[in-house]
């Protein structure tokens, strides 16, 4: 009997000592107290509990830094300049930093831990980024894999975005996805209505966010998003535009076209929209209508795969094929390129544009993925 008691007591004692040790360590080592983050030379100052990621600390205090990966360190969009207190650059950051950025103390804010007072600098547009509550007004399946999500903004009620920019959708935890995640989606609607936004979301097999949008989200649901983010938008010039989209990459381009229609633009613009089959085309009626409203605009669908028995008198092959023929004839000088969609397409197209003399600073793109 006594032996059993001694055994129990000794084991409990030992476990208790170790537990106490870990509790103490948690208290001593992982409590960083309050830290002060000073933004743009004191333009704004935040005092918050330290220890977490700088990206999250800023977001909790109403300052949203772009991020497409939700803080996993895999998108490279969450750059800020950390002037003091950031510690050393981590190996996870170096692949995303150019030599100039490394020199001027640019860091990935999702990798910097706020463990002491920090001084940072961010572009002033970031102050415009807000978190919104919205209600899903309509859901429409545009094709087998693309779904349009139209939402009404509830709080705040208006978003001042530049067509081409994107929002971050906050996906709550659901069965099969225990933590909330956020993902980037480009705005497809035009600038005339600032109180609602629509997105086009392509289903990715087993994708956390896209499965939620396609299988769980229902009309009338309340959701959260933040935005607007991104540097993909119309440049105010008269240059001829070559627009290239694949899949849901059409969304931000459509938004830009709607902006041009609103401004009654006469700019020359050709949109090449690459899909597999006619079944994957969407927004065709809207684009045809835009051809009527925009005198300089032409819409060119390019199918990579025309099933037997179907008639198609448009372009076929890779989306870059007809563009190559055009550039072969006219050359690329003086043109601007706007691309959105699949990263492989974008890499191939950017290379081609540069070969035909469109300079790198006239090529604008958002890679989805």
């Amino acid at each position, binding site marked *: 009997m006594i*032996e059993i008691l*001694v*055994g129990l007591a*000794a*084991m409990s004692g*030992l*476990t208790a000592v*170790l537990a106490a*040790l*870990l509790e103490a*360590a*948690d208290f001593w*080592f*992982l409590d960083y107290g309050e830290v002060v983050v000073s933004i743009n030379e004191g333009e704004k100052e935040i005092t918050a509990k330290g220890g977490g990621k700088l990206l999250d600390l800023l977001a909790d205090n109403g300052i949203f830094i772009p991020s497409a990966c939700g803080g996993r360190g895999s998108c490279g969009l969450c750059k800020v300049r950390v002037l003091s207190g950031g*510690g*050393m650059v*981590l*190996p*996870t950051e170096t692949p995303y930093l150019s030599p100039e950025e490394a020199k001027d103390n640019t860091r990935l804010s999702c990798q910097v*831990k706020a463990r002491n007072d920090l001084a940072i600098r961010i572009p002033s547009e970031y102050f415009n980024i807000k978190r919104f509550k919205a209600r899903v007004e309509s859901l429409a399946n545009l094709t087998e894999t693309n779904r349009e999500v139209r939402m009404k903004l509830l709080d705040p009620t208006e978003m001042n975005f530049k067509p081409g920019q994107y929002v971050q959708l906050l996906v709550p935890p659901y069965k099969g996805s225990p933590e909330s995640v956020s993902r980037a989606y480009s705005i497809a609607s035009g600038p005339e209505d600032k109180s609602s936004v629509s997105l086009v979301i392509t289903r990715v097999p087993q994708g956390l966010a896209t499965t939620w949008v396609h299988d769980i989200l229902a009309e009338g649901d309340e959701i959260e998003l933040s935005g607007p983010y991104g540097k993909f938008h119309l440049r105010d010039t008269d240059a001829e535009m070559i627009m290239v989209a694949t899949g849901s990459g059409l969304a931000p381009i459509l938004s830009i076209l709607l902006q041009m229609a609103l401004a009654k633009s006469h700019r020359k613009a050709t949109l090449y929209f690459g899909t597999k089959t006619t079944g994957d085309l969407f927004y065709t009626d809207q684009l045809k209508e835009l051809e009527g409203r925009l005198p300089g605009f032409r819409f060119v669908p390019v199918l990579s795969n025309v099933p037997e028995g179907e008639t198609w008198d448009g372009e076929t092959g890779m989306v870059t094929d007809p563009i190559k023929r055009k550039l072969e004839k006219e050359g690329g000088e003086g043109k601007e390129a706007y691309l959105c969609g699949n990263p492989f397409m974008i890499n191939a197209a950017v290379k081609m544009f540069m070969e035909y003399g469109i300079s790198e600073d006239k090529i604008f793109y958002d890679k989805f993925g």
Partner: protein
Amino acid sequence: MENPVLSAQMIFFAAVFTNNILLANFLGMCSFLAISRDLKSSIGLGMAVTFVMTVTTAINFVVYYYILVPLNLIHFRFIVFIIVIAAFVQLVEMIIERYSPLLYMVLGVFLPLITVNCAILGVSLFMIIREYSFIQCVAFGTGGGVGWTLAIVAMGGIREKLKKAPVPRGLEGPGITLVVAGLMSLAFMAFSGMIQMQ
């Protein structure tokens, strides 16, 4: 409780070469196979194992001979050793997270793997069976870790070379890795018998 046969230096040498815990006892195989894809992670994991093995062997020695033996509780040794190792790893993780972000980046992802590394538990249990003194234990723990590191770093180097080698399709990946592990074990068998360690 002193093992009279071997000096501490001898035990260290034996643990590295002749009785390599990985290649002679086949302990700690899972992380050995999983993390040895390249040299850098092999070295990181090896360092973490060496450190944790050395310190936990020492702590477990004290706990065993000064708590479990006097209280007649040696039948608790498995669970006690496991708890001590787990708590120690957790503590180390907290400390390096706080004081060395760089070391945390290098070792951080590996530390949780070590909590359940059977080589580390194995070393603690062997030292009891072989009745080592404290100094012998520390030598054994460090040697075990260095030996494990030697094996995984060699494997990491070989696997880096393998990436460029024309491996038959059916053997790619785990297949060829297991074959290489087998050959390395054979090579280390050449040392066996030099030192008798039970």
